[in-house]
């Protein structure tokens, strides 16, 4: 069996890659992908601890988190579409106000 620490190290690496993307990129699509990376890191933790404790609650909860991630992407891409229509760009620094 793979020790839990390996899962945690992989999860923290994926999380920090996502955080790096959020902190350094200005493209909204990169933002969305980075958020997905961070969310997948959290889901990996849920599955790893579920396996570690022999309880299925974590895996079931991970399924729900994946479903919510799909919903998040749908809304996120809709927002990016609206951003492009109204600003002509998907640079997140362009949208400095809540209305246009």
């Amino acid at each position, binding site marked *: 069996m793979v020790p839990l620490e390996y899962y945690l190290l992989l999860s923290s690496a994926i999380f*920090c890659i996502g955080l790096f993307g959020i*902190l350094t990129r200005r493209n909204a699509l990169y933002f969305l992908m980075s958020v997905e990376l961070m969310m997948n890191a959290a889901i990996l933790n849920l599955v790893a601890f579920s396996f570690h404790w022999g309880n299925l*609650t974590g*895996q079931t909860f991970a*399924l729900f988190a994946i479903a919510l991630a799909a919903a998040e992407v*749908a809304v996120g891409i809709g927002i990016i579409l609206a951003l492009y229509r109204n600003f002509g760009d998907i640079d997140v620094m362009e949208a400095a106000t809540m209305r246009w």
Partner: protein
Amino acid sequence: MTDTSRGSRKPGVAAVALFGVLVAVILSSASGFGDPTGFPADESVVHNIGYALFDIELGEIASEGFLAAFLIIALALDVALDSAVYLAKQEDEGSVVSALTDGGRDIASTDSPGSVDASGTTDSQSAVDSDGGEP
């Protein structure tokens, strides 16, 4: 996508530093986790997840019931679908154009280039109008 989409890399140092902290914490507590329990080899994990999703008391692997969460997530997905369609809609001179259009033109009318639609304008003319140019 392009170089203009890149911001400063300096804030990214915080992410690298956080990774270092996380690695130090995980490795320092590595001995405290112990051996993983795992799941019984003769039990189907997928079956048990299904039982947990619908709150059926047939599973052999310990879990909680998630029927209420299942229904709430179904509603949330429905709301997300509606909101995504709403955000994808485009208002063109006061009229809402649905997502099933091509740049404000009906998809059906794009099959025959130059055809005259119900308002008496051609496709090419509609395309100019939707781009904001002179008709």
